[in-house]
């Protein structure tokens, strides 16, 4: 595919018309049309503006050959257009950048990967989903508060790329499995932490059963069925609120004064999930009616402002490991300061300050090392080799 074709393809993938591009780049409509019809060649500064708007690296437009297969994004509830194209492009760009940093820094770990549950869809049942949640919890050593550890485990152990972006509606999240970057999850930065925890576990189910429900070559628009979504919710509940632990906590609460709304609040706090999640899990474990659950939720809603005064936190803009890799790549001269600014979503001036600090830190540590006296074993440090 030529540069002209790629420009047109990238614009259409973003759901933009030429006049939208003109409005956001100040490049004239006829000029844009000339670029896309190979009548005129874009200058580098123009190409840079277009690449930024389309959330693609400059290199994407300079490559030849077919466009690589685009990863499919699985949404619980797809936001409306044109917002969704912008969010999807940002999500995939971040995941690709993360992958690029891993490759440049030679830190792509492949020893531990997410379990691959290739179970035929017709064999998937609720008891099986419950067992899978238990299996994942014990395999990942998620102990007394799985929600408190899940994000760290997914990022650091399984190398899942988790990003937080703000979007509407708030009650949705997404995941993708890229050929290059592997498994990735997108959470809503506007949600409170306990809601994000549940979304994370919910999306994890989709990744663990990617082959079951999406197949080896997933197609765009492959929306999860209602049944698959119910399995994912069941998985998330059982992962974050393990039945045996919940039962134990409920018994303690009963002994202390009975099952009350404040007790639900305390349990939600203890497991770092929402009060609704606790109520639904109790409903399933103790075979209560939907009506009972709805009444409980109503009562909680009534008292929500009073009880739900837990402090939430803003999610990290970028994963910690991603930031560490970007700093390492900058320090080693593997990415330029401008690329660092783009990857970290900061201004060039801010990136320059980062670069100066990293260079100073490196210079001072080198200085200290080179002035160390050589010991008898020939080692230029204070420690003797034994």
């Amino acid at each position: 595919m030529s540069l002209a074709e790629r420009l047109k393809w990238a614009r259409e993938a973003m759901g933009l018309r030429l006049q939208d591009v003109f409005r956001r780049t100040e490049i004239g409509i006829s000029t844009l049309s000339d670029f896309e019809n190979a009548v005129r060649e874009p200058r580098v500064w123009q190409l840079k503006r277009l690449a930024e708007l389309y959330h693609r690296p400059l290199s994407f437009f300079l490559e030849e050959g077919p466009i690589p297969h685009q990863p499919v994004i699985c949404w619980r509830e797809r936001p409306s257009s044109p917002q969704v194209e912008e969010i999807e492009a940002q999500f995939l760009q971040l995941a690709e950048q993360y992958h690029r940093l891993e490759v440049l820094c030679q830190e792509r770990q492949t020893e531990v990967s997410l379990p691959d549950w290739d179970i035929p869809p017709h064999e998937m049942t609720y008891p099986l989903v419950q067992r899978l949640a238990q299996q994942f919890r014990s395999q990942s050593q998620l102990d007394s508060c799985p929600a408190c550890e899940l994000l760290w485990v997914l990022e650091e152990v399984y190398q899942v790329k988790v990003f937080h972006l703000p979007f509407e509606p708030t009650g949705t999240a997404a995941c993708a499995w890229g050929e290059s970057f592997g498994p990735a999850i997108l959470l809503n930065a506007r949600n409170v932490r306990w809601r994000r925890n549940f979304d994370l576990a919910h999306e994890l189910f989709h990744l663990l059963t990617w082959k079951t429900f999406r197949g080896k070559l997933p197609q765009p628009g492959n929306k999860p069925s209602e049944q698959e979504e119910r399995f994912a919710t069941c998985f998330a509940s059982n992962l974050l609120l393990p039945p045996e632990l919940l039962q134990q906590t409920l018994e303690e609460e009963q002994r202390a004064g009975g099952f009350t709304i404040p007790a639900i609040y305390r349990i939600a706090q203890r497991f770092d999930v929402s009060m609704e999640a606790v109520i639904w899990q109790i409903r399933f474990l103790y075979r209560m009616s939907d009506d009972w659950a709805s009444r409980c939720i109503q009562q909680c809603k009534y008292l929500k402002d009073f009880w739900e005064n837990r402090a939430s936190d803003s999610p990290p803009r970028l994963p910690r490991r991603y930031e560490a890799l970007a700093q390492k790549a900058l320090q080693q001269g593997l990415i330029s300061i401008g690329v660092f600014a783009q990857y970290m979503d900061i201004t060039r001036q801010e990136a320059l300050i980062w670069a100066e600090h990293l260079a100073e830190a490196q210079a001072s540590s080198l200085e200290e090392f080179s002035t160390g006296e050589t010991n008898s074993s020939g080692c230029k440090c204070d420690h003797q080799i034994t």
Partner: protein
Amino acid sequence: MRRILLDANVIIKLHELGVWTEVLLHVQKRGWRLLVAETVVSEVDYFRTEEGHVPIDLTQDFQKELLDRFDMGAESLRKFRSGFDPLYAPELDPGETECLAFLVENPESTLLCTSDSAAFRTLGLLNRSEKGISLEEFLQQIGLGRRLPYQYTEKFRVRYTHEGQRDFLQRRGFR
């Protein structure tokens, strides 16, 4: 006539040091030319002072012909990049890439003044180490020498150029 390509970081730093105008005049006195890529012009938006952000506007410097601007077509950039292994070569921003592509096409008496480790590394990889100049060395050559943070020193340039030369010798970073 010597031509010095300035990258965005260097332009920002010279403004921050408060010597930008002085540099332009000293360079003019020596009969050299300063070149800025069109992409770089859009990258230098402001510099920081204790009072806050101060916008950088190079318009008058271009009008007074104290600075020259240039731009390149996408095809030149594609040609320049085509020799590199996209996976392992340092990743440069469009401004740096445009400067390096220009340098490769117009090597006569042209130097790139940068403080970017990836740019020095790429010069080493291209086996054109002598085409890079640190801000420290540049200021010294025009009679404005001073002590600068490590990132702008000759030592920094040498260190990262060597990294690139090592990649060049090991044929790492090429297609």
